[in-house]
C-alpha cells in the first residue's frame, strides 16, 4: 500500500464514525483530493474480495471500516463491542441495602445512605436488579423493594441464602441494637 493509503487505514480505524473525503484529505493537506481518492481506491481493493473479515464501506457520505455481514451474528452474540457495564458505587450501596434489608422502602434506604436514593432505585428497577415486592404498613403504605432473580443470576448465586451472612462482614449490617458500653 502507498503511504497515504496506510495513513487513511489508520485514521479510518481509529475514528468512531465515518470520515468524509474532506476530512480524510485534511490529514495531509499537501496530497490533494485526487491522491486521497486514489488511496481510498487502493485501500478498498486491499480489503475487497474474500480475504478479510472487514471491508471499507462508503456510508453516510463518508467511509468506514465495517465487519463483513457474515460475521455480524457471531460477533453480536459475543457482545465484544461493548465493555461490560459496572455499577456505580452508589448503585452498589443501594443494591446492598436492598439485598440485606428486603423488603425495604425508599425512605429507609435514604436514611441509611444519608442521601436521596430515588434516582438510583429507579435505575436499579430499570435494570431489573430490584423490583417492588409489596407495600409496607403505615403512612402512605410505601412501596417496598426486594432483589430479583436476575440479581442472583448476575452474582452467580443460587439463592439469597448464599449471600454471606451479616455476621461474616466485619461490621454486621443489621437492625440497630442499643449501644453497648465499653
Amino acid at each position, binding site marked *: 500500500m502507498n503511504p497515504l493509503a496506510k495513513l487513511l487505514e489508520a485514521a479510518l480505524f481509529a475514528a468512531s464514525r465515518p470520515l468524509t473525503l474532506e476530512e480524510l484529505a485534511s490529514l495531509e493537506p499537501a496530497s490533494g483530493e485526487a491522491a486521497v481518492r486514489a488511496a481510498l481506491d487502493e485501500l478498498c481493493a486491499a480489503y475487497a474480495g474474500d480475504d478479510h473479515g472487514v471491508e471499507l464501506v462508503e456510508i453516510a457520505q463518508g467511509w468506514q471500516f465495517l465487519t463483513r455481514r457474515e460475521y455480524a451474528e457471531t460477533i453480536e452474540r459475543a457482545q465484544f463491542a461493548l465493555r461490560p457495564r459496572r455499577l456505580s458505587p452508589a448503585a452498589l450501596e443501594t443494591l446492598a441495602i436492598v439485598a440485606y434489608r428486603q423488603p425495604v422502602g425508599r425512605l429507609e434506604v435514604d436514611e441509611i445512605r444519608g442521601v436521596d436514593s430515588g434516582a438510583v432505585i429507579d435505575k436499579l428497577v430499570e435494570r431489573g436488579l430490584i423490583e417492588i415486592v409489596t407495600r409496607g404498613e403505615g403512612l402512605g403504605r410505601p412501596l417496598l423493594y426486594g432483589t430479583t432473580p436476575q440479581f442472583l443470576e448476575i452474582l452467580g448465586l443460587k439463592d439469597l441464602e448464599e449471600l454471606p451472612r451479616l455476621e461474616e462482614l466485619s*461490621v454486621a449490617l443489621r437492625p440497630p*441494637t442499643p449501644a453497648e458500653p465499653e
Partner: protein
Amino acid sequence: MTAPTAPEPQVPPSSVAVLQESAGFVVELEQFSGPLDLLLHLIREDEVDITDLPIAKIADQFLAVIHELGLDQAADYLEMAARLLRIKAQMLLPRRLGDDEWEDPRSELVRRLLEYQQIRELVAWLQRAAARRAEQFGRGYEQPQPDAPPAPLQIELNELLAAAERVITLIPEPMLHRVVPRPLDVEGATERILALLAEHEECGWSDVVGLRATIVEVLSAFIALLELAKRGSLTIRQPEPFAPMVIRRESPREVA
C-alpha cells in the same frame, strides 16, 4: 428528606482549599502530592544526602513552605512537621560517647523517604508507558445501536460486600459511630504559652513543652505555636542552624 443532622464539624477558618471527605481532610494541591513529596522536593533542591539528612535545615524549610502555602491546617502536613521537629529535638539530645544503643532518630523517616522515592520512580516509568501507549489508537468507540442488546452487566460479589460495608458505617446509629477524639490539647497548650509569654517576653521550645514531653504534648504545643504565630500573637525564629527555637511575644495587637 430524613438525612441525619450531624453537628457541623468545627473547621477552623482557613485560606486553604480543604475539602472535607468522609475519611478526613484532603488537601487538593497540585504542586505536591503529600508531605513526603514536599520533603523530597526540598532534599533535591538542597542537593543533600537523603541518608544523612540535615534535619534541622529541612525541618525549617518544611515549616516555611507549609506556612507559605497555607498548608498548616492540613493534618498530613502538620503531622510531618511535628515528626520533623521531634527528630530535630532528638538529634539535639546529648549522647554519651561510644553509646552503642543510640539509634539514629532519622532512620525511620529516611526509610520512608527512600521507599517513597522509589514509588516516584515507578510513577515516572508508568507515565512513560502510558504516553507510549497513547501513541497508538484503538478502534474508536462506537455508539451502540439503539436496538442492540445492552452490554452485559457485571457485578462482583466482593464489590457488593464492600458496598455493604461502606453503607454500614453510614447507618445513623451511635454504636457504629464511634468517634475517637484526637487526644490533642491545643487549647491547654495555647494557654500555657500565653501565660509564659505574659511573664517573659521571650522563651524557648523547652519552656513550652518541658523536658519529658510526650508526642501528643509536642504536637499540641506545636499546633498552638503555629496558630498563635498565625494570629500574630508571637513570632518563632531560629537564630542559626541547630539553635533552639526562640518564641517571642509580639507587641499586643488586636486579634482578628
